[in-house]
């Protein structure tokens, strides 16, 4: 079999290609972006499938469902919080008569390396009542992605492949297999399987619930869910999931005994295997990356017969990532401590806006503009510009989720506060900022929107935005913002005073005003070069 060194994200992309996808859709978000980056990079080599960034995760998911409707296979990928955006089509699609294989790859970010929370997507899979696969090696990422497409077509459901940061962004050798051809166009004949009216949805929901037994049987029998019993040791047993297995195995050789061990890679949770483990031991330690999903299922509300340890009782930290070290301590092994340098305090080095970044000049102008007011609210959004919260700018006050800057500004202004400024990047505006701006215009809110338009999705590595900058102004115009209060500024140091004056005047205007600060991301030429070189 051919071998390649691949990131977990790239292994997933390769698995999808070899499964015969006809299309892949995504919205960039760390740690999932490299799935689509890889698909786009290798598309010319591996054949004619669509590999496209979309406006947001919801539109990406819906496009993938459309591919399935006509019988072809689709991959849709996103980060964990992206699934909140796509939750509506995702949860509902579990009811549909999925036809061509539909696989959702979602990458969680425990430890919040580049995210605003560390939610665990396994809860979403459970919520939708579908199957979730959680690989622990890059090789398994490839294999399980292929399996996910098979399962989707076998059970007529979307199937989730859950990655976490360290598997998504770690490289290892992956053995790839035969590539199978794409499905022919073959529209689904399930007439009532694609339309969720109460009458049809009730039937489809009942069917999905009926099929749960089959999903569970699949999980119970999956060779990925392995149970090894130690017939002579009863003090405790271990359940690992995802990367928990890696860190447990890293330490196991040092343990005096090898306790009974159940590894779970395939969900729903294989209850029978859990019960077989529980029969043998007095205590179960659950080692899982993310939330305490399995642990809480075992704990329930009534006192379980077996003591359950993990993140809920403090055996493992309840926030952040698993590491070889915290798993080591959970196994009762002596902690290791490396060398210590004495007498030197190591200063933190947080990320910051690049030298020459246009946002720097935009924030300088904004800070000058708001300085003239006694009070202000400045909401912001998700992207590089969120770093404007940190010194030296300290220009922004909020960051909630994609697009929230606009809606929050509208709310604050309608509550009676003035002045209110929302700052949002062009990518984020196109993702989720348009609809709240429609709201703001409809209600005649008194707010100013500053669109920091660098013509790229910068934070995630420079993906092309869905609309070119030249069309942003027309879009804002079309929404109904008064043309006299749509201003274009160029955020350069030499324009700062003038730009501050424009922002100040628009803050004083009673109504919705929009300022587009237009200058290319400083990284754009570098990213372009890298992409052209195929790096």
């Amino acid at each position, binding site marked *: 079999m051919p071998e390649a*060194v691949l*990131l977990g994200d790239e292994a997933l992309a390769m698995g999808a290609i070899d499964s015969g996808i006809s299309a892949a859709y995504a919205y960039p978000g*760390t*740690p999932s*972006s*490299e799935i689509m980056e890889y698909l786009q990079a290798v598309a010319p080599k591996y054949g004619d499938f669509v590999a496209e960034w979309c406006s947001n995760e919801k539109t990406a998911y819906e496009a993938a469902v459309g591919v399935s409707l006509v019988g072809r296979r689709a991959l849709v990928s996103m980060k964990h919080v992206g699934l909140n955006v796509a939750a509506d089509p995702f949860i509902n699609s579990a009811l549909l008569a999925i036809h061509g294989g539909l696989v959702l790859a979602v990458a969680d970010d425990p430890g919040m*390396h*580049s995210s605003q929370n560390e939610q665990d997507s396994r809860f979403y899979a459970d919520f939708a009542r579908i199957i979730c696969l959680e690989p622990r090696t890059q090789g398994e990422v490839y294999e399980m992605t292929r399996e996910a497409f098979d399962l989707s077509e076998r059970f007529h459901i979307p199937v989730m492949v859950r990655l976490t940061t*360290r*598997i998504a*962004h*770690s*490289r*290892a*050798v992956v053995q790839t297999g035969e590539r199978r051809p794409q499905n022919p166009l073959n529209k689904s004949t399930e007439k009532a399987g694609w339309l969720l009216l109460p009458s049809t949805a009730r039937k489809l929901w009942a069917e999905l619930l009926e099929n749960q037994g089959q999903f569970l049987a699949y999980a119970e029998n999956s060779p990925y869910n392995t149970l090894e019993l130690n017939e002579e040791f009863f003090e405790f047993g271990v359940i690992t999931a995802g*990367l928990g*297995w*890696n*860190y447990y*195995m*890293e*330490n196991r050789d040092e343990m005096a005994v090898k306790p009974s061990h159940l590894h779970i890679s395939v969900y729903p949770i294989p209850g029978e295997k859990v019960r077989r483990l529980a029969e043998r031991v007095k205590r179960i330690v659950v080692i899982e990356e993310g939330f305490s999903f399995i642990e809480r299922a075992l704990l329930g509300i009534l006192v379980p017969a077996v003591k359950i340890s993990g993140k809920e009782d403090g055996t493992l930290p309840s926030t952040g990532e698993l*590491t*070889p*070290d915290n798993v*080591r301590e959970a196994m009762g092994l002596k*902690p*290791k*401590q*490396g*060398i*210590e*340098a*004495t*007498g*030197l*305090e*190591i*200063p*933190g*080095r*947080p*990320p*910051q*806006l*690049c030298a020459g970044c246009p946002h720097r000049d935009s924030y300088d102008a904004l800070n000058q503009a708001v300085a003239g007011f006694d009070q202000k609210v400045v909401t912001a959004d998700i992207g*590089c510009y969120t*770093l404007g919260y940190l*010194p030296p700018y300290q220009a922004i006050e909020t960051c909630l989720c994609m697009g929230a800057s606009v809606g929050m500004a509208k709310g604050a202004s309608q509550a009676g506060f003035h002045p209110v400024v929302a700052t949002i990047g062009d990518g984020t505006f196109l993702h989720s900022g348009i609809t709240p701006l429609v709201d703001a215009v409809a209600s005649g809110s008194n707010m100013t929107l500053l669109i920091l338009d660098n013509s790229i999705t910068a*934070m*995630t*590595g420079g993906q092309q935005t869905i609309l070119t900058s030249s069309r942003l102004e027309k879009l804002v115009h079309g929404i109904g913002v008064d043309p006299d209060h749509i201003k274009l500024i160029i955020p350069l140091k030499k324009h700062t005073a003038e730009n501050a004056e424009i922002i100040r005047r628009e803050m004083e205007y009673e109504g919705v005003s929009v300022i587009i600060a237009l200058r290319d991301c400083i990284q754009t030429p570098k990213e372009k070069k890298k992409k052209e*070189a195929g790096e």
Partner: protein
Amino acid sequence: MKYDVILAGVGGQGVLSLAAIITLGAMKDGLTVRQSEVHGMAQRGGAVQAHLRLSDQTIVSDLIGKASADMILSMEPIESLRYLAYLKADGVLVTSTDPVKNIPTYPEVEGIYATIRGLPSAQLIEAAALAQQAGSARSTNMVMVGAASAHLPVQEKSLLAAIDELFSRKGEKVVEINRKAFQIGWETAALAV
């Protein structure tokens, strides 16, 4: 055999390209490799690290545990000290002397060098100056790969082959400069050992 390296630096310094060369070289030697990287927000001028694990057997964990790294390889002196807890008692620290002062509270460099020299096993490499000698400031990373290679369980010829492979599309001159930078880095580190 198992050899664990923590790579450190500042976002934008090319820590990942350094990891890529060693990974490819190790694979040419038939070793198993696992390389964990940082993408996203941290790459914007913040502290970045990568975990690189080499072995002739299966590697299970993507991350290196504390007191387990055989080497800390850093593009920046203060960053080399950030991950000391991960270095084994007999591990080696190899770092560039060139500071990246993008924070207001950057300590006095002589103090940093003194701390590094006080470690059981450490090498300070004047990477930027040596890269100039090789013909281009842009070959700083390859000076550091060369310096690391004096300790790594990877053959010199495999690392050179990796350089050839990864730089070939940039032209013969770039390959030559990077090979030379590697050689200078290796000599500097090997002579000091």
